[in-house]
């Protein structure tokens, strides 16, 4: 056991003096090593350390055949490797031995196969290994094996900065036909935004024309496209679903065994990484795909003193304070999806505004959404629980970041076209409400057409849900406007991370389009559902926001509700709806008045069309006539019926039917009031309330019941002291 311990830990004195000179950069573990040295002072040199020493010292050109010493030493190293794994130093030594071909290439594959790391793989060793590729007498199969090994232990390499630094060197190997798939995978893992260059894109395209549309090239190109869409004009097939294959076969079982034995945290992260990268085993991958990876870094070493040199993995950050301290040298995890699960990580993303990190996250989300919800395999229904969790996570992330991901928007536009209106409804509607402003030229096709079909063929509850969702969408757009419009009067940025701007008039067109669309849905929806009061309530919610666009959100736009909304609300059987309509009309008046006064004040201010004023006046006059003056059917009003027809209906005094006393919504109050006012009276004569004195009492009684909207409406439209029979005033155009 002692032997294994020795080899698994840093090697002791005899060897460390040797390693020090060659690997002077590996000073980070020095303090640890000193401690180890102390501990082992008394231990005798054990055979496996000697074996390593042998491989370190062995002369180039030493024969292999018939060399029992090599065999014996290699077996010793292998034993330790398969049992406990190799320490970083041992890996450096063995890798160097193999790649330098000091004893020819026959031992190479065997050595590579036993490079099972116990903790981490030193980056320098990998870099040196890569550099040996360039010297080039290594057989192609061994080169492939080496790259496969790098891919397998990629998450265990202690840092990636130097590897990224030799990106160009690694890239040069793509032209080697046999290495290409594996090199592409490695590049894929190393790519960052700065690395994407025209000449690399060109090289890859050239290769593609030579080799055909290979999935590994497409995958790398698609990543380039994510980083620099302007450089990659190539269209990538929407259904290219091949992920890079897993190449960990030669090491998989050994790695698992070693990690299991060591009880290391590394095991879980490797298994997750392999599960999500595994393209060959679709079934297995299916089950793991939407699982948000655990935020992890394999580099589980103690935080070092010289943090300035090394990057700090995000997983080690425990608090906001630490985050702030290490802000400039944080290493993002290999799996961007893991960021979704960590609020600290999101905090980091939000304040660093790291474009490439967001792009990577975006890419991952888009891929996952498409894969799970648009292009499902058979038995897609089984993982709906997973999808639910994932979408909820995505929603809370969007909520946290206060903005959506463009990939989820793009997904939604497509998903709406095949949605049944019920699958994951709350989540889909939630995501939908986060969609940023869409230009009015596209809003119809992307949103309105699919939503129309869904709305009119679905239940009233879906209708309510959709109206609520569109209200939230509008609210977010308006807030967006009020935040960004302050910075620049004309242009607002659609998304804080893109440079796409929109003019104010374009924004107004979009908002107008949305409001008109909801108006259409609302009028017809109310008609189809028999003025369902729940639906009406959601619609009035929407207009409560719309009527205040100018004052509350600073958007110079006033849109009146269509008659299909106004009249059903006015004639609703519940007093709350009528009250809310009154409130909405009151706010319209305040907004319009204020806009008008501004228009007079400054020449620049926006112009409200006469049509809007006319509509507003018509509604107000009708409302006052109807509720106050008992003159429902005046010529020139919104609702007109022929006199004969009204007489035929045999309704006595039909013109009073919807005044505040006889309105079905308020009738019960009127009767209640009547009883309170004239307790002795047996016959109820509601008309008696209309006399000047009881009328004002009745109004007071109504207002005291909490109908503030009605109160505000009456106060603003009917001059004080003018009792029954007074026409409401109107705004002049």
């Amino acid at each position, binding site marked *: 056991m002692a032997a294994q311990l020795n080899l698994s830990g840093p090697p002791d004195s005899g060897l460390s003096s040797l390693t020090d000179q060659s690997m002077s950069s590996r000073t980070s573990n020095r303090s640890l090593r000193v401690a180890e040295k102390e501990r082992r002072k008394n231990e005798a040199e054990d055979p496996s350390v000697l074996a390593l020493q042998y491989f370190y010292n062995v002369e180039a050109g030493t024969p292999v055949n018939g060399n029992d010493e090599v065999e014996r030493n290699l077996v010793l190293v292998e034993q330790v490797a398969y049992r406990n794994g190799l320490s970083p130093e041992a890996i450096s030594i063995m890798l160097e031995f193999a790649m330098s071909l000091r004893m020819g290439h026959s031992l190479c594959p065997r050595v590579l196969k036993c490079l099972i790391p116990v903790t981490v793989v030193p980056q320098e060793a990998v870099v040196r290994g890569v550099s040996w590729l360039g010297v080039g007498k290594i057989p192609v199969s061994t080169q492939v094996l080496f790259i496969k090994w790098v891919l397998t232990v990629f998450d265990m390499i202690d840092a990636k900065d130097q590897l990224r630094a030799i990106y160009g060197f690694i890239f040069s190997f793509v032209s080697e036909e046999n290495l290409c798939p594996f090199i592409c995978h490695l590049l894929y893992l190393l790519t960052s935004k700065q690395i994407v260059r025209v000449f690399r894109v060109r090289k890859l395209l050239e290769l593609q024309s030579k080799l055909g549309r290979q999935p590994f090239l497409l995958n790398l190109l*698609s990543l380039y*496209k*994510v980083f620099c*869409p302007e450089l990659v004009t190539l*269209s*990538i*097939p*929407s259904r*290219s*679903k091949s992920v890079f294959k897993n190449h960990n076969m030669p090491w998989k079982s050994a790695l698992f065994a070693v990690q299991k034995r060591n009880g290391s945290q590394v095991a879980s992260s490797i298994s997750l990484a392999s599960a999500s990268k595994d393209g060959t085993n679709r079934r297995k991958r299916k089950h793991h795909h939407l699982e948000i990876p655990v935020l992890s870094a394999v580099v589980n070493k103690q935080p070092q003193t010289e943090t300035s040199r090394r990057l700090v993995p995000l997983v080690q950050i425990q608090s906001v304070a630490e985050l702030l301290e290490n802000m400039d040298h944080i290493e993002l995890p290999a799996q961007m999806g893991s960021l979704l699960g960590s609020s600290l990580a999101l905090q980091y993303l939000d304040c660093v505004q790291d474009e490439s990190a967001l*792009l990577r996250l*975006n890419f991952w989300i*888009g891929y996952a959404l*498409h894969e799970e*919800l*648009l*292009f*499902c*395999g*058979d038995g*897609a*229904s089984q993982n*709906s629980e997973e999808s639910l969790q994932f979408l909820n996570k995505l929603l809370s992330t969007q909520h946290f970041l206060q903005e959506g991901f*463009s*990939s989820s*928007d*793009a*997904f939604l*536009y*497509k998903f709406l*076209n*095949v*949605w*049944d*209106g*019920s*699958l994951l409804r709350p989540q889909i509607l939630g995501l939908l409400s986060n969609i940023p402003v*869409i*230009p009015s030229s*596209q809003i119809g*096709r*992307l949103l309105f*057409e699919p939503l*129309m*079909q869904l709305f*009119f*063929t*679905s*239940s009233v509850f879906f209708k309510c849900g959709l109206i609520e969702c569109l209200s939230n969408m509008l609210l977010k757009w308006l807030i967006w406007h009020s935040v960004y419009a302050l910075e620049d009067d004309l242009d607002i940025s*659609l998304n804080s991370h*893109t440079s*796409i*701007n*929109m*003019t104010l008039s*374009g924004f107004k067109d979009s908002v107008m389009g949305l409001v008109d669309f909801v108006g259409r849905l609302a009028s*017809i929806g109310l*008609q*189809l559902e*028999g003025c369902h009061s729940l639906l009406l309530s959601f619609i009035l919610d929407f207009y409560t926001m719309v009527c205040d666009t100018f004052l509350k959100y600073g958007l110079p736009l006033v849109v009146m509700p269509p008659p299909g909304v106004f009249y059903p609300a006015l004639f609703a059987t519940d007093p709350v709806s009528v009250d809310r309509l009154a409130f909405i009309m009151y706010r319209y008046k305040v907004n319009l008045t204020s806009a008008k006064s501004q228009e007079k004040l400054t020449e620049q201010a926006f112009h409200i069309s006469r049509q809007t004023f006319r509509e507003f006046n018509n509604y107000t006059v009708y409302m006052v006539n109807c509720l106050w003056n008992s003159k429902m059917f005046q010529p020139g009003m919104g609702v007109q019926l022929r006199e004969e027809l009204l007489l035929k209906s045999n309704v006595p005094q039909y013109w009073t039917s919807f005044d505040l006393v006889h309105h079905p919504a308020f009738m019960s109050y009127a009767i209640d009031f009547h009883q309170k006012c004239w307790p002795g009276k047996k016959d109820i004569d509601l008309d008696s309330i209309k006399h000047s004195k009881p009328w004002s009492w009745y109004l007071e009684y109504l207002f005291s019941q909490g109908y503030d909207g009605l109160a505000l409406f009456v106060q603003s439209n009917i001059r004080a002291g003018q009792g029954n029979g007074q026409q409401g005033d109107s705004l002049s155009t």
Partner: protein
Amino acid sequence: MSDARSEKKRDKLPGLNTANILLVESEEQFQKSLADALVEETAVTVYVRLAKSLPLPKENEESRPRIDLVVFIINLTSELSFQSAEASLKYLDPGYLLGKVCFMVTNARNVSVPTKRLDAVRKLAAALHCPLLFAEDQTSDGVTNATKRLLSILKVSAGLVPMATALYLSSLTSCTVPPRHRPAKLRLAPVFSGGVSLNF
């Protein structure tokens, strides 16, 4: 030609508070679960007729009530299913196309569906001005929802919703031209694109 169009039931009168729906599906799978769910409706008496394809057999002519809504169920993963629906449409009385036909599509989210087929179904529905509903036939929630949506259309086309007619509803819900036939600029490279390319 019109002799061949057997679906002509104008001479039959509608029953009181009843609605009749005809489900046409060549695979005869989804229609069964839909039928079982449809007849559960209590507000209206719903009669369901199931057919594999049109024309309907002559011998049932007498017993067959006036059909208020014809639903063509198409499984997108099967070319046969689509072809069968297309062939059946030829036997439909043109009168039905005035708001009394709808298409219900299943498996639209399946990876094995060629985009061309979905486009073809869309084109068909758009050309006939019929609504195109998507349904999840694998889950019970999906079936319930599909049933509800069919019922809401059926009630209108059977004249049970005041102020609404089948033609009116179908003008609101009829399928639109496939999105793919829009300007190429808007076609996204879906998985990877960072969203809609908004060019101003």
